[in-house]
C-alpha cells in the first residue's frame, strides 16, 4: 500500500505541534500515521510512504510525526510498518530513520 503525503495530507508540511500552525507533524501522526499503523498491526501489510511532491519537510515536523509514533509504540514496530520513497530528496529517508531510531534517546 502506498500513501502519498502531498496527495493525501498537504504539500506544505507545517510545524511540530497543532498549536504552532497548520498541517503539523502532530496532526499528521494522529490523522494518518496512527490509523495506518493500526492497519499494519492488523493486516501485516507494510505501508510505503511517498514523500515527494511537497515544498519541503521541516525537521520538527518529521521528528514529531515519525519519532512521536515510535515513542508511543515501539521503534521496531514502526520500522517494520513503514518504508519510505523519495526521489526528490533521497537524504530525507535517512533522516526519518534516524528520527525513529533516536526517538527515545536521552
Amino acid at each position, binding site marked *: 500500500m502506498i500513501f502519498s503525503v502531498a496527495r493525501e495530507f*498537504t*504539500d*506544505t*508540511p*507545517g*510545524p*511540530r505541534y497543532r*498549536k*504552532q*500552525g*497548520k*498541517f*503539523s507533524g502532530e496532526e499528521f501522526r494522529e490523522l494518518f500515521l496512527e490509523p495506518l499503523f493500526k492497519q499494519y498491526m492488523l493486516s501485516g501489510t507494510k505501508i510505503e510512504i511517498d514523500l515527494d511532491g*511537497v*515544498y*519541503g*519537510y*521541516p*525537521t*520538527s*515536523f518529521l*521528528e514529531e510525526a515519525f*519519532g512521536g509514533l515510535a*515513542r508511543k509504540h515501539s521503534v521496531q514496530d514502526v520500522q517494520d510498518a513503514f518504508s519510505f520513497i523519495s526521489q*526528490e*530528496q533521497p537524504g530525507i529517508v535517512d533522516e526519518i530513520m534516524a528520527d525513529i531510531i*533516536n*526517538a527515545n*534517546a*536521552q
Partner: protein
Amino acid sequence: MRRKDPKYALYCKRRLRKLERAKKRKNGVRSNHSGSLNVNRFNYDMAPKVYISNIPECFSIVTNPNETIHYFNLLINRILRDPSIKRIYFEFRKVKEMTVDALMYLLAILKFLQCKVWEFSGDVPIQNEPKELLLQSGFLKRITRHRISVQPNGKFYMSMGNSADGIETKKVCEFLYEHSDAQRQTTNFIYDMLMELEVNTADHAYKTNSNSLFHDNWLLVVEDNVDRFSFTFLDVGVGICKTIYKRWHERLNLGKTQYDYLLSAFDGKLLRSETKESHRGRGLPKIKKYATENRIINLTVITNKAICSSSDKCILEGQRIDESLAGAIYYWEVTKSSIRYEKEAS
C-alpha cells in the same frame, strides 16, 4: 414653609453645585480630586509630543551592530518611558548605508511593540542606494495606508506572521522560482529552514508569561541580488540566549558568554532547549549543517548580546556585542546557481 425646611435647603445647595459642575464642564474646565484644574478643550502640556529620531549613518544591524542596536534600544526606551510621545519623526536624510535587517527591526518597533506609537513621519535618505532600499523594500507600504507613488521593482519579497505558516512559506519559494531557474526539488532546504525559524517564533508566541517587548511575530524579507538571494529573518521574541535552558551554575554567569550559549544551541550537543525535551531543539543544528554544506552562505545570527557568523571555512564564530538586541536576526544568502533545477537527460 417649604423654604424653611432644612431638607429643601440641602436640596438647593446640591442643585447649585450640580449646575456649577455642568457649567464648568461646558466651558471645558473640570476639577479633579486633587483640587487642580485640567483644561478639557486643549491642554498644551498633554498635546502629543513629536520625538525626532536621528537614524545612524550606517543603519545596519549586520554590519554596524553596536551603533544600530544602541539606536533601537534608545528608541524603544523613549517610546516605553514617555507615553506622551505619540508622534515620531524619523530623520533618514543622513543615512549613507542601510540594510534590510535594520528596516525590519524598525518596522517591528512600529507595528509589534507592546506600547503603540500612533503617528510617524520622516524624510528619505539623500544618497541613492539607501533611498532606493527604503522605497522598494516594502517598508513604507507596511507602515502607512497612504498610497506611495513608487513603482516597485519586484526585487523584494516581504512576509510576516505569528505562527509557522506553510502557505506563506510556499509563496516565498514561488518568489524564488519566478526570479531564478529554481524548482521545488531544489529549494526544499530553504522551506525547511524558514519553517524552523517560524516554529521558534510560534513556540514563544503562545507562552503567556513571555516578557517580550514585542507581540511575538516574525518578519522575512527576500532580496533578489543578481546572482543570489539574500534572506533576512527577524524573530521579535526574547532572543535565543534568553530562551536557552541554563543549569544553576550557568545562571551565575561564570566564564560563559552569550555567544557560547548561541554556539552551543547551533551545535545541538547539549540539552539546550527551554523545553528540556531531548528530541527538540534540532532546528538550529540543521541550519548550521546547511551552512557547513555551503548550501547557504554568509550566515549571520544576531541575538541578545551575541553575534555569530560563518567564516570562509564554514565554521560558525561568535562575537560579543555591547548592547542587547531583543529578538533574533538571521541573515543568509543562497546563490542562484546552487538552486538551479536541471532536468535529467532522458
